[in-house]
């Protein structure tokens, strides 16, 4: 039995997806190294890149664990996992650590992490499991209770933090998975409206709830040139970084915008700007292609999934990567508002990397087990 699984695991392992995310992660480490290097080559090099390497090793191990166990176990414990995810969100509001006006971090002894990062996976598992168990009647109504549990309650918790990025992601995933399953258009429309309205959700309360920097970001998105050294600063500097890369880029470790601090959040949210500055259009195009392949492969996995739960999870995980990618790249190219969302696999951040690898592990798991027609 074990031997059989092992052989099949190796034979059917999704090397392409694995290779693509390893490529992205290595590009990430290399770019983090450049982005965080001390200006003018003087001073100590901050250890962001080495931390990221450690996290990468942990993440790869987690990925293999996720591949090793059949994903049917996720289905079995889906609600418990989702419940745990909600619990984490509540916990962070109570015991979380505040940083830059947002309460997103939870500390467990020496280790601190962002519960949102794990919640998003649990959300996909939970919702996929729920939708998979429903009958396939497209006209079937989704109960109000479900909408509250899978949409309104977590949304409220995320906005309270506030974590706009994960909130946007959650709404997007809810809609994508609902469409994918074929829930009635009425429910989808309602949730979409709730999602759109959730920005000015409860009117002025939201605007009041927005932290100062979020207001600035929204205003800056409307017109980045209003005050180039003020709120539009981030957007303009990001554009300058990318544009100044030209066709071939300034060369590795030759970018200036990041190390000289013109670019904000250079190794996290704006890492693509650092990459594009040094690698130019050629490098940027290559990166876009890697992502394109990853997304299309994810959809292909969804098509080949052996069951409804696997299919929905593959769609959800692919959609999650895609939404992050779109919001992040769109933000650095200033075609979308500045929302603090990292570029999956590339941006610095241990929890995010780990969570993305776990998600990718599930995706590979689904593809690897596509031929298993019967549960053993």
């Amino acid at each position: 039995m074990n031997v059989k699984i092992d052989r099949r695991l190796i034979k059917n392992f999704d090397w392409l997806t694995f290779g693509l995310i390893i490529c992205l992660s290595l590009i990430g480490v290399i770019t983090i190294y450049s982005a965080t290097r001390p200006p003018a080559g003087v001073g100590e090099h901050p250890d962001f890149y080495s931390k990221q390497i450690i996290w990468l090793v942990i993440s790869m191990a987690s990925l293999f664990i996720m591949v090793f166990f059949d994903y049917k176990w996720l289905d079995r414990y889906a609600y418990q996992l989702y419940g745990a995810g909600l619990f984490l969100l509540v916990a962070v509001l109570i015991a979380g650590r505040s940083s830059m006006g947002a309460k997103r971090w939870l500390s467990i002894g020496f280790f601190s992490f962002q519960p949102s990062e794990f919640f998003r996976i649990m959300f996909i598992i939970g919702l996929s499991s729920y939708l998979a168990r429903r009958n396939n009647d497209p006209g079937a109504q989704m109960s109000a209770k479900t909408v509250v549990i899978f949409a309104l309650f977590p949304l409220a918790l995320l906005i309270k933090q506030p974590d706009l990025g994960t909130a946007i992601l959650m709404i997007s995933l809810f809609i994508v998975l609902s469409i994918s399953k074929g829930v009635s258009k009425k429910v989808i429309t309602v949730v979409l409206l709730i999602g759109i309205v959730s920005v000015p959700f409860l009117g002025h309360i939201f605007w009041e709830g927005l932290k100062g920097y979020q207001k600035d970001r929204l205003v800056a998105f409307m017109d980045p040139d209003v005050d180039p050294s003020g709120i539009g600063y981030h957007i303009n500097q990001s554009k300058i970084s990318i544009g100044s890369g030209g066709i071939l880029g300034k060369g590795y470790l030759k970018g200036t915008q990041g190390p000289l601090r013109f670019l904000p959040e250079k190794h996290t949210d704006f890492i693509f700007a650092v990459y594009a500055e040094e690698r130019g259009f050629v490098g940027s195009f290559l990166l876009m292609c890697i992502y394109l392949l990853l997304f299309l492969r994810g959809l292909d996995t969804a098509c080949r999934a052996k069951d409804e739960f696997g299919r929905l999870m593959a769609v959800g995980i692919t959609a999650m990567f895609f939404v992050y990618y779109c919001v992040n790249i769109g933000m650095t190219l200033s075609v979308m508002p500045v929302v603090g969302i990292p570029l999956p696999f590339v941006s610095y951040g241990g929890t995010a990397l780990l969570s993305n690898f776990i998600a990718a592990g599930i995706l590979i798991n689904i593809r690897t087990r596509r031929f298993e027609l019967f549960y053993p």
Partner: protein
Amino acid sequence: MRLKKIQLGSYIIVAFFLFFCFKLWQLQVIEGDKYRALSESNRLRIIKTPAARGIIFDRNGTALVKDVPFFSVSVSPESIKGLDLGALAKFLGVEKSELVEKLTRKDNSPFIPIKIKEDLSFPEIAHVEAGKSDFPGLFVESGLGREYLFGTVGAHVIGYLGKLSPAQSGNPDFSNFPPDAMIGQWGVEEVFDKELRGTPGERIIEVDALGRELRLIQQRPSVKGKDITLSIDIDIQKAVEDEFKDKAGALVAIKPATGEILALESLPSFDPNVFSRGIQYRDWVSILEDKKNPMLNRALQSQYPPGSTFKIITATAALEEGVIDLGKKINCTGGIHFGKWTFGCWKKGGHGPIDFHRAIVESCDTYFYEVGRRLGIDKIYKYATALGLGKVTGINLMIKERSGLIPNTEWKRQKKQRPWYLGETYNAAIGQGYVSATPIQMARMMATFSNGGTIYPLSLIKGGSKPVGQLGIKPETIQTIKEALVGVVNEPGGTGHSAQSKVVTIAGKTGTAQVIGKQRGAAGGKYMDHAWFVGFAPVDKPEIALSVFVEHGGHGGTAAAPIARRAIEAYLIKHEPAKAGATLPAPVAGNYDAREKKKNSPEVRE
């Protein structure tokens, strides 16, 4: 159904992919150069390093100015937002409103550091250096300031440095100057600004987003400005300022053989040091509102009737035109009557029969009325203008020089629509009436006359220039008048005896310009006449010619002549002690008491 939905998903993914690639193409390929330039201007700063300014020397090699280090506190524009301005104002000991005003000026560049406090003392520098870590972006900048070693002495010649005025900022000549650049704004500092200025150096540095300097990319050292050696002798200037005491006036001394300006003093003067370190507003106002008008260069900008000093010109015309017989005396009965008017001689009761020589020595007005009558105004005009009166000397001090006025019949007809009257000729012959001149014109007249009639352009630079003309006056004429001018200073009864020197024979002529509308008889203050003295020395080979003008000084012989003597001695004792001693005349005995008593009498019009 499912497949269709997934297909739709892949279309969306490809659409976003294409859209992002298009945006990247636009930014990186199409607009790449623009953004490359923007990123370079982000990180590179070009900092001009000031060039040391050339030193100004006097003709003896004495430095008149010195470049001194000058420290100011600046703040980089990027870091202003993060500063607690209240705390900063307190830290620097300045008013918060003043600080805010400086930081929010419209013409502040977003890249050039803004000076917020200037002229720091060493303890202040230490204070700022010690506490600046609390205020990111704050730093001490050093520059070169200008110290004027002789203060007010010669300030009108040397000038001062000042910030660019708004008008100059718009001038293309100064377009690449930083807004706080100090440039010459007066005197030689302004005239020779281009030479003195030097070429600023350039440092191209890399900075981070907070404006902190990270490393030097490229450097071009500054080139010091050219030194300039002036023709002036600071010792004369010092002696003159000392001798004037608190009186207002001017002295111009010229080297007759070259046209070099040996001294040009206008008093009261100002202290250029007040300007060179960024004048405070209240200081500027106090200078502007000073009733004594220290910013007026009286040597070039005040014109008055030259009084009897003008008789040198009338006498020259008389001899050249042959209208008088040197041996023949004219009887002075204390004035002449012309119609219903009386033109008095300054000496009530008259000089009696008096010849040419004594008429100059004693400055007899009656004699020169007669000479004027015989010449006519147009002849007087001819010689006065030949000697440089009635037009600007053209000396370049970048200020509006006044031209004085020499009238003639043509002028009267055009300006006054009246014919010329003989009475006006009488007045003109003794340097009164319409006639007026500036001290520098009178000094130049004296220089041209004393060198035998060679006209030199005036120069403030040591060495002078080539002559530009020759008067063509007979040497005998000049010799005859020179003898009389020696007599003015050295003979008994001469009006200029207070210019008499024990070390050199000085020749000269006194003069008094009437204060118009004055209360005749008032003996002091602003109703007193203006005093003139023009002269030169040594007599046989003139080294220095000068004019002295003392506002409300009273009588030329008493107010202006001693200043002239002091200036001449200050110059000659140092330069030609042997010669000065050799020409020392025998002491001239004479009783001048009678004249002394007369000096403030109502009728004195010498």
